[in-house]
């Protein structure tokens, strides 16, 4: 089998994940997109393992590790999301902007309002 097929598929899948991470509003969906990206990497790892056939089976072993780490990550990530949701009342990533520059909002409330309006739209 041509290595190009799994490689290109992985690349496209990764890009889809990137889009999801950057475009989704709900944090849970963002986490899902991260899973997509991880899986794209897994596909690459497996494909290259099958291509190289090294004695350590490094690709497959790393895939297993990635899957494990992904499981841990999704567990922790969801816990954090739940905590944020409980404290802030929302799971929308563009509403959790406490680390932004508050002076800007105070200084130019009009600008902040337009920002907020755009975010709400």
């Amino acid at each position, binding site marked *: 089998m041509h290595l190009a097929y799994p490689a290109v598929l992985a690349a496209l899948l990764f890009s889809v994940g*990137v889009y999801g*991470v*950057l*475009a989704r509003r709900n944090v849970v969906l963002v986490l899902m997109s991260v899973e997509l990206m991880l899986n794209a990497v897994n596909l690459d790892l497996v494909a290259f393992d099958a291509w190289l056939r090294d004695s350590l089976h490094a690709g497959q072993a790393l895939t297993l590790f990635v899957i494990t780490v992904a499981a841990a990550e999704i567990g922790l990530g969801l816990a954090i999301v739940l905590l944020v949701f409980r404290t802030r009342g929302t799971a929308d*990533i*563009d509403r*959790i*902007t*406490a*680390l*932004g*520059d508050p*002076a*800007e909002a105070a200084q130019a409330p009009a*600008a902040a309002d337009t*920002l907020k309006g755009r*975010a709400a739209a």
Partner: protein
Amino acid sequence: MNLALPVLVPALPALGAAATFATGRRAPGFARPLAILPVAASAVLALVVALQLGTGQVLEAATRLTPTGGPEISLAIQLDGYTSVITVLVGLVATCVQVYSTAYLKDDPRYPSYAALVSLFTAAMFVVVYSGDLIVLLVGWEVMGICSYFLIGHHWETADARSASLKAFLVTKLGDVPFVFGIFLLGADAGSFRISDVLSAAGHGQLGHPTLTALLLLAGVAGKSAQFPLHTWLPDAMAGPTPVSALIHAATMVAAGIYLVARLLPVFLLSGAALIVLAVMAAVTMIGSALCALAQDDLKRVLAYSTVGQLGYMAGALASGDREASVFHLVSHGAFKALLFLAAGVVIHAAHTNSISAMSRMPGLRRRVPDAYWTTGIALVALVGLPPFSGFFSKEAVLTAAEHAATGEAITNGVGPASAVPATAGWIVLVAACLTALITAAYATRLWLVAFHTPAAVPPAAPAPAPTGAEPGAPYSPEVDEADPATAEPSAMRWPLWVLAVPTMGFGIAGVRTDWLPALLDGGSLRPTPVTAVIGTGLAVAGILIAWAAWRSGTARVTAARLAAGRPLGPTAEGRVPGGATTPPAEQPPADPGRTLLGPLFGPARHGFGVDRLYTALFVRPAGAAAKLVRFLDREVVETYVRGTGLGAQLLGRAVRLAQTGNAQTYLSALLAGVVLLAVWAAV
């Protein structure tokens, strides 16, 4: 001779000044002894040094100050008869002024700094006189200038004093810049800044540019000694306290320029052109300032213009090649002009005004200040030049020198060839000096008569001369406030007058015999020749008579007018002349012979012939406009750039701040886009 003595002469007042500066604020009680004692001690030392040096001796000592790679600068003293005479004069006047100031500025809160500055000035003057090195001389010269600046601005609360001090500083510095270059030129040509080396180089014809050097030096001399183009600061400098005017602006500092030319006369003798320039300068200064003095109403300004004119005499003597006569007149003028100023201070103290026309309305003024009255008379007679007062002898010496120069037999006393002095210079000086003698006599008489002898305008029964008697806008010195009529003449102000009156009356005799004063100087004769004596005295007497006649007729007219004005005061007056009848007699124009004598010239002369206005138009306005332009460039153009950078940074910061939304997705988008861009860039 012990070298420590001449060194101590300038050192003592300098130390006194430092001590006064250090203790003046904390222990004001020490200010008076610290002001008087060092100056008096250095005056005594100066006398001792002069006596030890004797006549015809020259003492030179030098130590190298610093290696410069070029002409060397050395800490040199050079003592001869000239320095002896002038230091004794400076010490005497400075001591008198310090003693006088203790009473004159008794209640002044800034007395310590004043006294320290006067002491420092005295030290600087001693340095200038004793110095054998031109650079060291320049240091003393500039220290004098800055002291003069501070002392003129002593009453810095008044705008007059502030602007006058600034004007004095700027005008003298204007002259000092070419002066410095003249010194550099001398040093470069002679290979040394030592005066003796310069003079020997001049004697051997090694100076490459004598005319240029002399003209550059003359600019500094004109600034310091208030000669014609740069004389305008001196009348304004009268805004300072009167003792300062006596010391700095009459007796010593303004004479420093004359002294310097006398010292470097061989250099000037190398250039006939420079001597003619000096002669023209002196002539214009003499006549113009005498005319101005005739028109002034402010007592101190009369004296200031008179000082300018007498300095013109000295410069004229130098232009005639006779430095002996010049220094002779310098010393006698220093004594009688200091006396005039100090006496004027007493009068102002008592009269509460500077205006002589206001004084003329004060009854009994001369009875309240008898010492000042008599000493003013003595000094004025000396100024006019009547025998046997000192002014007569010194002025005759100047006239004799000019006469000899005019006939081509200049008295140079071996300093240079007689042919070095152009006859033109002699003629210019001679004519101007004769004319000035006439006008000087006129304005001295006018001053004396108007200030003290105007018939009483109000009955003597009203003894209290109210300060409101002064004309509105009349010049008024703030330091006279504390005077009360009972102590119009404190003893500390009285006896310096008589001390100075002695040389005013007697110093002239010193020039009569060749082995007295001339032996100390160059050895030439200072005895007046009969022709000039008769001409000079005759002109003086003529001036006095003319002024007296004008005053008499003026007084008679005023009295008649007053009688005429007094008649309508009767019971029928009200219906006829309601406005004019109520004019009090004190408002009548005083009988001013100056107005009569000068005629149409009176107005311009009163304002210094508009030289100030001319300078304002020529220099002050363009400078002000340039300053405004620079201010505009700085405020609007440069500042815009500065503000623009700040604004740019601020705007950039605001823009960057906009990116700081707190939205993690935005950050991540930028990060990933950056990664992609970097990858593409690295690959391509």
